[in-house]
């Protein structure tokens, strides 16, 4: 098995772990959004990169890349929409 592909996938899984830890530990919805949108997106990127390397096919790699771009676009927009709705509903950001 391709060592680089394996490393990418394991790294991706670790970012997923960090995203979930942030989701559980961070103090409010806004901070949790940071964790999910950033860590999970990059985690998925590494995981898909690993799968693409493993598949060794340009067609598969291109499709996984398109999927990743869609996820990026979707989660950036969704996080903005959730944050805005929370603010306007009066969910004040947590302060130290």
């Amino acid at each position: 098995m391709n060592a680089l592909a394996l490393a990418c996938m394991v790294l991706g899984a670790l970012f997923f772990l960090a995203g979930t830890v942030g989701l559980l530990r961070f103090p409010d919805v806004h901070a949790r959004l940071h964790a999910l949108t950033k860590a999970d997106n990059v985690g998925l990127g590494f995981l898909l990169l690993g799968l693409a390397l493993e598949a060794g096919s340009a067609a598969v790699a291109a499709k996984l890349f398109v999927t990743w771009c869609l996820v990026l676009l979707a989660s950036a927009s969704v996080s903005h929409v959730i944050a805005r709705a929370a603010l306007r509903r009066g969910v004040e950001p947590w302060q130290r």
Partner: protein
Amino acid sequence: MPAVSSTVFLRAGAVRAVLYALLWGVLVGFEPGSWSLGVPAVLLATWLSLRLLPPVGLRLLPVVSFLGYFAWHSLLGAVDVARRALAPRLRLAPALVPFETALPPGLPRVLLLNSISLTPGTLSADIRDDTVWVHVLDGAGGHEAALAGLEARLARVFCA
């Protein structure tokens, strides 16, 4: 909607049709038989996209440079938030800071909001008039420069 000359429209249409054809090829596979559905789909998508989003002037080199900058900073953002999440003690000092943008409404602003959310420590939470409300994980500072840099790079992407 501003008046756009027909050459600009045709050029934008041609570029988009090529991109949609590539997308079709990626999704379905470049098999000759698939184009009997693919060509109508591509034409329909091109027509719809021109109706929904009239041609925007983009400059190739700044686009490429922005994508590189964006990819690198997304990675930094993920590393930053992962370290904060996994640290034994939570070191967060969140704040909501205003950022005045000079970018015109429409596509440039949408791109600004989305890229703010994917760069380190910042999340676009709301926009009212020209003010973007940015939620930052660490209010200690340094965000002004990063946000202004992001905006400047984005401004160069669009033809004046």
